[in-house]
């Protein structure tokens, strides 16, 4: 079970280059796709989900060419878009039955059984008869997951699923996604590093439509071990540090500004060593990419 993306490029009619020679091999399990807003994640997700054509390249899942046989790919696909709406005047149960029918579950009994199980799985059972326009953001997102899981898909794409969710809802999502990722290919697109570090066994960082880095999150973290240094600075000093050092990120801690610098050795005695996180690796990649682009 493998999704192979080769040399995928897409430029919009307004000249925006959304994808540029993107190539990825994604196997069973959770795959995190990390990138800033506008990096091209959603374009890539939509293209895999057969909603958009590419200018060039190929997407093949288990031998199914997404461009040649989109209908075949859809039969094994579950997709939760970043932002989606629901029919306001129908209940969750009705809409799930409707989608289940569209997903090819043609036997009414099976359809009912399947939908009931999913409603229980995502904890919407008690409100299954309620109209969807009364659902909260979290409930709607759970509904979204349920519809993506209908038909037991082999390839699941979830685009920014935790955006706008409170910590508790996010926690639920982690649980659910980790469970469904055991036997399927799940691509989790996000700009929240924690999502990837928590859930994914493999990941890629994408920026300006290009794959900047791929690998296992823990190895990516480890690759910076001994190269990250942190220091507390004032706002006035910030520009100086940016000029003098390779600053990859800045953050506030207890009202004080801390910056993270990449260097092979400790820059000076005021810095202290920082244990690398996936977020640091992510910022490091973004920083590299930014310099590359400006050069």
């Amino acid at each position, binding site marked *: 079970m493998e999704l192979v993306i080769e040399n995928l490029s897409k430029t919009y009619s307004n000249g925006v280059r959304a994808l540029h020679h993107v190539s990825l091999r994604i196997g069973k399990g959770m795959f995190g796709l990390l990138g800033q807003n506008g990096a091209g994640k959603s374009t890539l997700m*939509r293209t895999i989900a057969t909603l958009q054509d590419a200018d060039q390249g190929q997407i093949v899942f288990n031998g199914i060419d997404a461009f040649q046989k989109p209908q075949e790919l859809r039969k094994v696909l579950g997709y939760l878009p970043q932002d989606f709406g629901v029919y306001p005047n129908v209940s969750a149960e009705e809409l799930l039955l409707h989608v289940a029918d*569209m997903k090819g579950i043609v036997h009414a009994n099976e359809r009912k*059984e399947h939908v009931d199980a999913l409603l229980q799985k995502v*904890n919407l059972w008690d409100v299954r008869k309620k109209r969807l326009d009364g659902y909260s953001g979290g409930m709607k997102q759970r509904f979204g997951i349920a519809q993506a899981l209908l038909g037991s898909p082999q390839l699941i794409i979830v685009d920014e699923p935790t955006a706008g969710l409170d910590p508790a809802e996010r926690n*639920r999502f982690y649980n659910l996604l980790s469970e469904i990722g055991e036997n399927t290919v799940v691509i989790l697109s996000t700009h929240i590093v924690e999502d990837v570090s928590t859930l994914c066994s493999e990941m890629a960082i994408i920026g300006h439509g290009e794959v900047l880095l791929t690998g296992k999150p823990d190895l990516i973290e480890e690759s910076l071990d001994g190269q990250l240094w942190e220091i507390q600075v004032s706002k006035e000093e910030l520009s100086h540090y940016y000029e003098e050092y390779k600053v990859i990120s800045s953050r506030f801690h207890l009202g004080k500004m801390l910056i993270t610098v990449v260097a092979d050795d400790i820059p000076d005695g005021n810095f202290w060593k920082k244990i690398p996180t996936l977020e640091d690796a992510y910022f490091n990649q973004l920083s590299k990419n930014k310099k590359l682009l400006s050069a």
Partner: protein
Amino acid sequence: MITSIIKFQLKERLTHWISLVFFLMLIFQGVWYTKGTFDYYVNDGVLMNAPSIFYKNFAGLGMLMVIMIVILTGSFFYKDIQYKTANWVYTLPVNEKKFFIGRYLAAFCVNVILATGYFFGMLLVPYSGIGEAHRFGAAPIGQMLHGMTVFLVPNLLLFNSIIICVLVYTKRMNVAYLAAFLVVVFFLLMQTTAESSGYSPLLLIADPNGYVTISEYLDKLSTFDKNHAYVQLSGYLLINRLMWLGVSVILTVLAYRKFSFKDFIRAGNKKEKSIRDTVSPNFMNWTSKIPVPRLSFTLSDQLKKTLTLSSLEFNNIVRPSSFRIIIGVLVLMIVLQNLLWNAGYYIGPEMPLTSGMTFFRLAWGVIITLLLMIWAGELFFKDKTINIWQITDALPVPVWVSQLSRLLAMCGVALILCLVFILVGVISQIALGGMEQIDLGLYISDVLGYKWGWLTFVLQICFVFFIAGLTCSRYTTHIISVGIFLITIISFDMGLFEQVRFGYPLVPGMEDYSEISGYGIWATAGFWLFIMWASLAVVFVMLGILFWDRGYPRSWFRKLQFSGKQLNSYAKLAVIVFLGIFLALQYYISAQAYSNGNFKSSSQEDFEAADYEKKYKHLEELAQPRYQKVDLELAFYPEERKATYKAIITLKNPSSETIDVLYLNFKDFVKLTDLKFDNQSLKEVSKDELHHLITYHLPNPLSGGEVVTLQLEAEKQYVGFSPSGENPQADLMFNGSFGSIREFLPVIGYDDSRELDENRKRTDEGLTKLLSRMPVLDDLSAQNEDAYAKDAFWVAGKITLSTSSDQMCIAPGKLTEQWKEHDRNYYQFEVKDPAPFNWHIGSAKYVVQLEGQAKSVSYRILGDVRHSFNTGIYEDAIRQGIEYVQENLGKYPYDELRLTEINRYHDARYAYPNMIAISEKEGWVADTKALKEKSYLYLTVVSELSKQWINKHIHIANVQGADMLKVALPEAIALHFVEKSLGQEAADLLVEKKLEIYGKDHNNEPNQEPPLLYADGIDYLEVNKGAVALYQMMKGLEPNLFYSVLKSWDQKEGDGNRTFKSLYEQLLSSLPTENRESIRVQFEEVN
């Protein structure tokens, strides 16, 4: 602050491309509506850019303007909710009341500014090419500005206030749309009610646009005033304007008081529907297992899926409360239409017939179609509108399944709507006591069929489907589909298109249902046109699927490729096949129209009429023989719309000149098989195929006063059908054939009935204007002609008719014999004493509703088997009428009388020897509970009985005033009968109706209204004003004296033809001197 808000809004709105589109649309509407209103005024003196036309335009606003107002106005407030900018805009340090005023005024200003496009459109009319230069005067800028001030601006203010007030109170845009829609519906109701039942104070005041009021006001203006006058704000007009301005102000104040940021920000917030989420933050249902289902994607599964998915889509439309509100409003309107406004019969309501119940679909068809088109557009884009498309488009369902399910759902919605309409109709019939009149077959054919029924709606939905696929834009789909629909409807209404085959998805004759003849020839035409449109609809649906953007929009280049994958090769082949069928049917229908001679455009007809006059007017001066006796044998073949006939016609040379050339004018479709002149063949000198005029050289010249016989054998058959709704070809129908005998026998010499009699058309065709539509009083030649047929003396003869076994024949004369032969019915009639040659013959599935004897006259009432509602009244009218005639005028001239029903395509009434024919629209199905309707039925019968007496006694000269004798005199006699028999109130009601019709119609006089003394045969004059004037003269003179003068005039005048003038002079001289002047003014002046 307010200025700043207005400035920002104006800049933002007016620089948007959609504003330019609206502006250009309104310019177009300005030109387009001007043409339509101009055509309403047939008087050739009214200019195309007359102020009266512009006043009406401004009051009506027009469909495009209303659409613009509805789309724009609410968004001035709702866009902050829609785009969620209210969350920060409403926190700015702005006074919320000033904010309201600013946005309110900005909305109003934008509407007014864009509405100037309408003004400019009207100004551009002279340069638009829709009329010749002489049709235009100087631009009436002052009156136009006045019209804008009095009508357009207040009406815009009213809509502005209604939409904003409703929006502020309900916080729902769709309710605001509905409110605006209801105002339009209300306006249309006022307008249509005024058109069908006349102006009343209620209508004049209640019309929110002031359109009814201004129409009533303008109808009374002279041509000069129509072209120049400013409208005076007084009377009902002033009340109407002030009242609706007041309503606008009240609504504005209410909205102003209600509006607050805290309140309005709740718009779109559905807190009240929120569902409590009871799941604990850390709980996850680990225990549940998700079963693995079996998936199937066979074709049969997809087909089943299409049906099951459509049920959810169907629910998406019918569940919202707005749907139920709209259905409720429609049902209410239909109930009112059925119960109160079904004035199909011209003087009042009809019995609760099914055809009356199904009529609402025509009155409300445009609105219902618009609703369905908008619902369809919304449904097709629902996934995109609510942003679920990324989920649904990624599902393993072919485009055809998801899209067809929506199409089916919309067809289902339309079906439900139509079934509700049927139910409402049936309940209305039961409520009105018309249980027996329920005709489910007609309900199904009308409401579910393609004559603006369910199938028409389905075709329109298919069109929206195609546009949706083509544009993949919700708003563009609405604008294009609704725009094309409205342009189509209005273009036909304005006569820009005449052939229905250019008007998807229309079929001809939808409005011409006759209880007797059904849809007549249009039934066949309708079927073929429907098949044609259905073929196109299949193409629309297929292409709609092919072009539909699944996922992100594709470029036009990719989208429009026929090689797209959303249709397989079989489906693409089907597109080509159905397109081929559509084109083949277009060709076939065109062939039916032209090759079979079933259709001529009105411009072609005008041209031909003018051409005939130009070529043959000189024949008027030539001596030609006249009909003196006719023996006709004619066989109707109704199922083939054919008649074969033989006639022996006795002709007499009325002049002292010798005639050696004979000019015979035949009607279209007549095929002459043999023609002999005193048993000798005639030599054809020339034949004008266009005008069907054949010139013969007589073997033996016909000297003055000489009598000869013309033996004629011919056949007439209508073949094919017409793609236009104009000519029902009513003389030969499947059932209910009825026509003048001259449809079969030729007109001799110059046929002046072919002349154009509207001066505007005459000028257009290069003919001189008519000063009078009839020969003037002192035209000696015309004085010697009979007013009914100038090529005939009074004629006697025998008529033998035969028809199919299920039909009966009618003809003038006494029925002397009737028999059955070869499974056909035969009838022989004889007109012993010569009579005016206004004879008509026919064949229909009649039943004898009643037979009886009145005095020495045996009578028989023939009619449709279902139309016996008023037979008792007709019988009583015959009995009393004969008695009245005998009492006041002298012996009723016939010992046998047939009163016969004819279908609604004909004039109201006919009278000739032994026969009276009355159209079904004139009383057979009238609801005669009220005095007015009952008395009208008496009037019609007695008027025709009187006409028979007059036609027996008076040779009417073919000069001005002839119709005062032919029409007004019998009508006046009948009015007196009604007064005597049913009371003064009954007569007064009829007089009031006549004066109302005259008042309404005389302003549409195409030429110049003549004084009654010189009346020249125009519809509105003699039968209304003429009859009332004579009736009043009769009352002034005392009826006995009136009749005495009439009889003595009849006896004194000798054998020559009579003019009305001579009767008038005798009547006038009999009046008391002090009464003469007022009567003289009535008859000799136009007032």
